[in-house]
């Protein structure tokens, strides 16, 4: 082996080492920011089953938990964002009353995604419907198209945002199913906060998951099932 070869190998070793030292912390940070590195796949379809019989009239714990988790102000004016809200219902014929939480239903065929001109509204492979805050031009066509009034438009500048929850003035936002928590293996904040365990979160594509077993045995419906959107959120006792 001649001198030049040795020198070259030495040089290569040092550069690879230096490169690794330079990149490693970046990778580490990237990992930390994104939680798990494996790609989102359609083996999973995240969904919720909401038991309206257990949902207490006047209880707002899920709403408060959502606001806290996502850094929403909790204001109730028509220009404030509300990702989840409690709706009080009364059957017009029978007079039966009930109360339930309403949020983005994470449709399999979401109208907001169909109409969005830029593709900012998109559905992840695991069924979560999101808005890319860098692509949204704020046209609000998705809000016109959503059957559940699930979306809010950010009407003014925001302060004290959560680093995990990107939001921005002039863009549209809605329930993310706490995607930043779900990707870390946690439950959405609302599901965790419900004192009556009325919100069951899980994988609809896994026949053995609790949610799948439950929707096989109890009657549940999709809101406005007539629209054929195949929502990820289902309601029991409606």
């Amino acid at each position: 082996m001649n001198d030049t070869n040795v020198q070259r190998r030495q040089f290569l070793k040092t550069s690879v080492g230096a490169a690794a030292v330079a990149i490693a912390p970046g990778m580490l940070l990237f990992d930390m920011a994104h939680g798990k590195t494996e790609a989102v796949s359609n083996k999973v379809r995240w969904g919720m089953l909401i038991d309206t019989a257990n949902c207490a009239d006047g209880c707002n714990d899920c709403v408060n938990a959502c606001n806290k988790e996502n850094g929403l102000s909790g204001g109730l004016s028509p220009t404030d964002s509300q990702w989840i809200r409690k709706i009080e219902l009364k059957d017009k014929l029978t007079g039966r009353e009930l109360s339930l939480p309403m949020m983005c239903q994470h449709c399999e065929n979401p109208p907001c995604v169909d109409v969005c001109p830029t593709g900012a509204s998109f559905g992840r492979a695991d069924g979560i419907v999101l808005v890319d805050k860098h692509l949204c031009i704020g046209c609000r066509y998705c809000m016109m198209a959503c059957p559940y009034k699930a979306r809010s438009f950010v009407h003014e500048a925001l302060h004290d945002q959560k680093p995990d929850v990107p939001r921005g003035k002039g863009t549209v936002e809605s329930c993310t199913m706490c995607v930043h928590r779900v990707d870390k293996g946690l439950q959405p904040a609302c599901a965790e906060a419900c004192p009556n365990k009325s919100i069951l979160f899980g994988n609809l594509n896994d026949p053995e998951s609790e949610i799948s077993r439950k929707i096989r045995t109890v009657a549940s419906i999709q809101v406005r099932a007539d629209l054929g959107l195949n929502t990820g959120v289902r309601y029991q006792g409606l």
Partner: protein
Amino acid sequence: MANLSPLRFQTRLYYVLVALGGLIVLIGLYAAHMMEQHGHIITGMNNQIVWGTPHVFAIFLIIAASGVLNVSSIGSVFNKPAYKARAPLAGLLSIAMLAGGLTVLMLDLGRPERVIVAATNYNITSVFAWNILLYSGMFAAVVMYLWTMMEKRMKAWSKPAGFLVLIWRFILTTGTGVIFSFLVVRQAFGTAILPPMFIVISFAWGMAVFHIVQSSIYAWNLKILDEYVQKRMRNLMGLFVIAALYFVATYHLTNLYFAKQTEFEQFILVSGGVYPLLFWVGYVLVGNLLPLVLIYHPAFGKTRSVIAASLLIIIGGFSLLYVLIVGGQAFPLSIFPGYEVSSSFGDGFIGQYSPSMPEILLGLGGVGIAFLITAIGIRVLDFVPREIPKTPLK
């Protein structure tokens, strides 16, 4: 001013008018800037009424831009000389209104600076995205058409270009209608009658705008519009108004027939406060019945009446769009049919909206843009209709 010759006075007046137009545009741009700085909080729009006054202005301008081209089509495609002489002016007006309308639409975006994203990230399933193509195509088609009419060597092409414009604007207005008729969950919108209704309405509104501009140009140049032409165009406008009214009536009557829609119709036509008022007084009375009297009653029908009728038709148009767009959103979504609902997010309640100054100024800015383009266009290029009078001189 007394010592100015009439011509110099007119030139000065022209510059004053253009300056005024420019000022309106500037104010509109400033309003948009304020909306961008403070956010839409300074508008009347909210999470229930997401499209408001700017959209009423923008959609009026876009629909009228398509309709005004009827004048060109009748001239070039169907070979009517009276209209042929007016085709270039109609083309100019179309471009002007399209530019005004699109600017308003763009400046109302939450992120107007990102409008380029709409071109780089194109979602093929979005009607909105299709419309972006339709609008830019329309500009190109009309410019080309104008060129074939104004450049002698291109004359032979003016008929095919006119044909292209004819087809394109049908598709364009259909596309504008489809923006609404694809909103199946909204009781006011999800119906296939909207695109044809928009097309017929566009004829009436486009004609009204054309009449006003044409009369102004004639008065400005101290020319008198040939009576024969006046009569034909006036009667055609009347016909369009009747046809548009028929479509609007059909839209509401069909809705009334569906039990699930009756509550909405009750709201829009009877109990909804400002919306029924605007519909019956603004649209039906001011926008249809009065203009029809002015057009067809033997005591009227002269230039002044036609201008008045045209103005009323335009007022009626704004009223109709306000009722359709704002009123259509004010009525709550039916998320749980059969239930009475209430929530902190306005579920089950009529949405509240009152137009704010910045929105109105932005809308007027769009009109200002259309005015400026027209005024400058007429001055720079030859858009004044030239013809040999058909009515025998008295």
